[in-house]
């Protein structure tokens, strides 16, 4: 196929990607949007395979087959609770692919001729971004899969290391542009791979939504940078579309925590503010309750709001929550769900879990929608959420989480908190909500406690 026809094919693919992304942004058209994106990819691959530069199809067939089998297996086998890990892993693979494409492209150019500045700059960028995306995603995966500890590791040593490594990557990049040679490429790649590890290692689980959205953005930017090396318009367009959408999502996640991206990446939440003392907050004020007592409350309620957090995912309680919701609805109780934007470990995590449990998405309310309705809500059930319902964020300007938008559950008539213990959430600060007069603590495993409530309700 002639070069012009290939370019036209790429144009068609780019249009399909644009329509696909637009579709993915609306609930009604999301399935179609995803299909259009896949169609665009098919067009792009088929058109590329007709390129006359390609002489050996054996390698390509092998790579495509192996990749398709692994990708297919991963996508069909994963549990919905494992979704954050899988998204992290796919981001990493995308970054790795761009990294290798950049390396191969640069080596090819070097063998023929001295690369021009555009090629060298793009190579440095693609290597750096691709490598950071790869190892950063692998660390995120390991944390989410609990292969390593998921907590925040506030380490001044790592912070200095990160700054040093970032400077080293920039320095090696300048070196590669000034004197294009293979060893610069390998050195840059190696240092950037280490940077990805040290960058994500200190970041704790609750900041994962920001990290995953950012890695998503980086995987797109790496592809765009590879496009600059290969002079490929489709890589540039598709890569930057993804880079932009990922970055927008990163911004939404940061705002939902009232933190800047720099603060998430290089700071730690403990850095500022004075936390209240746990004993002072809780002493003698915590009311423990039982599933039977809560069932009595629920029976007389008109409106119940459920507030899920990461604890619901850990306890795999989404199906138990669905059963309780159905039981309440049979008694004409209105049930809504309040979803904090950063609840869970990736953007939209709670929505995916509740969708798996067949809870209609109309019932899931955003923070701004549900907040004004808490004062006419009879019972709020908090399942495995902590910092996102901590009134300190609103009331104590000295608190480390001051200013973070929260769900104002404390304004409801009664709040039931399902939790294993009084242990603090990610921010490491006590939650006065647990000691409030209108709060009942229901200690226990998330799923077990919710099932007990459903059972107790049935026996009334």
């Amino acid at each position: 196929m002639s070069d012009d026809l290939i370019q036209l094919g790429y144009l068609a693919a780019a249009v399909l990607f644009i329509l696909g992304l637009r579709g993915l942004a609306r609930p009604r058209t999301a399935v179609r949007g995803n299909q259009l994106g896949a169609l665009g990819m098919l067009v792009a691959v088929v058109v590329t395979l007709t390129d006359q530069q390609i002489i050996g199809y054996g390698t390509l067939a092998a790579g495509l087959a192996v990749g398709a089998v692994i990708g297919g297996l991963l996508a069909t086998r994963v549990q919905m609770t494992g979704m954050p890990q899988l998204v992290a892993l796919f981001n990493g693979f995308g970054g790795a692919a761009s990294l290798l494409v950049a390396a191969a492209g640069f080596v090819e150019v070097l063998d023929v001729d001295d690369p021009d500045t555009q090629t060298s700059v793009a190579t440095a960028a693609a290597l750096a971004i691709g490598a950071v995306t790869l190892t950063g995603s692998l660390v995120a995966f390991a944390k989410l899969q609990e292969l390593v500890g998921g907590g925040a590791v506030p380490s001044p040593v790592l912070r200095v290391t990160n700054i040093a490594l970032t400077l080293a990557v920039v320095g090696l990049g300048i070196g590669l542009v000034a004197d294009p040679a293979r060893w610069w490429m390998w050195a840059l790649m190696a240092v950037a791979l280490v940077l990805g590890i040290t960058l994500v290692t200190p970041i704790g689980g609750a900041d994962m939504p920001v990290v995953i959205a950012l890695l998503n953005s980086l995987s797109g930017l790496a592809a765009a940078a590879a496009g600059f090396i290969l002079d490929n318009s489709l890589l540039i367009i598709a890569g930057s579309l993804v880079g932009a959408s990922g970055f927008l999502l990163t911004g939404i996640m940061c705002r939902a925590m009232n933190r800047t991206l720099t603060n998430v990446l290089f700071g730690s939440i403990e850095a500022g503010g004075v936390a209240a003392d746990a004993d002072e907050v809780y002493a003698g004020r915590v009311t423990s309750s039982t599933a039977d007592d809560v069932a009595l409350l629920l029976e007389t309620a008109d409106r119940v709001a459920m507030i899920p957090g990461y604890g619901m995912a850990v306890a795999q309680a989404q199906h138990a929550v669905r059963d309780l919701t159905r039981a309440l609805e049979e008694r004409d109780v209105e049930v809504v769900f309040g979803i904090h934007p950063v609840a869970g470990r990736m953007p939209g995590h709670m929505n995916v879990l509740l969708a798996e449990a067949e809870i209609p998405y109309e019932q899931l309310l955003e923070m701004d929608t549900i907040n004004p309705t808490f004062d006419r809500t009879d019972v709020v059930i908090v399942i495995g959420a902590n910092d996102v319902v901590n009134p300190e964020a609103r009331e104590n300007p000295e608190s480390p989480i001051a200013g973070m938008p929260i769900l104002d559950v404390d304004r409801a008539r009664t709040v039931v908190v399902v939790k294993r213990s009084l242990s603090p959430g990610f921010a490491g600060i006590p939650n006065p909500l647990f000691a409030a007069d209108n709060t009942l603590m229901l200690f226990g495993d998330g799923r077990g406690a919710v099932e007990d409530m459903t059972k107790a309700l049935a026996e009334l």
Partner: protein
Amino acid sequence: MTFVVALTLFVLAVFLGVELISKVPPTLHTPLMSGSNAISGITLVGALTSAGAGHSTLTTVLGFGAVTLATINVVGGFLVTHRMLGMFSRKR
């Protein structure tokens, strides 16, 4: 393609990307992320050229790795997004 043309495409596509998804509801955050991640597997196109051009053993090996990883990204990404969206629409 000159550098300026490439840069033009890049900048315009960034603005377009922001416009396209600026109003995405939180329910779709995860599918949008996994779907757009599959699109970033477009680097597969570059990988195919590198792996198939038979330039040298090194570039073929790098290209083969890139084809495999990018295909995992593409196939897995679109499939898992489809699965997830299937759950979203089931109850309507």
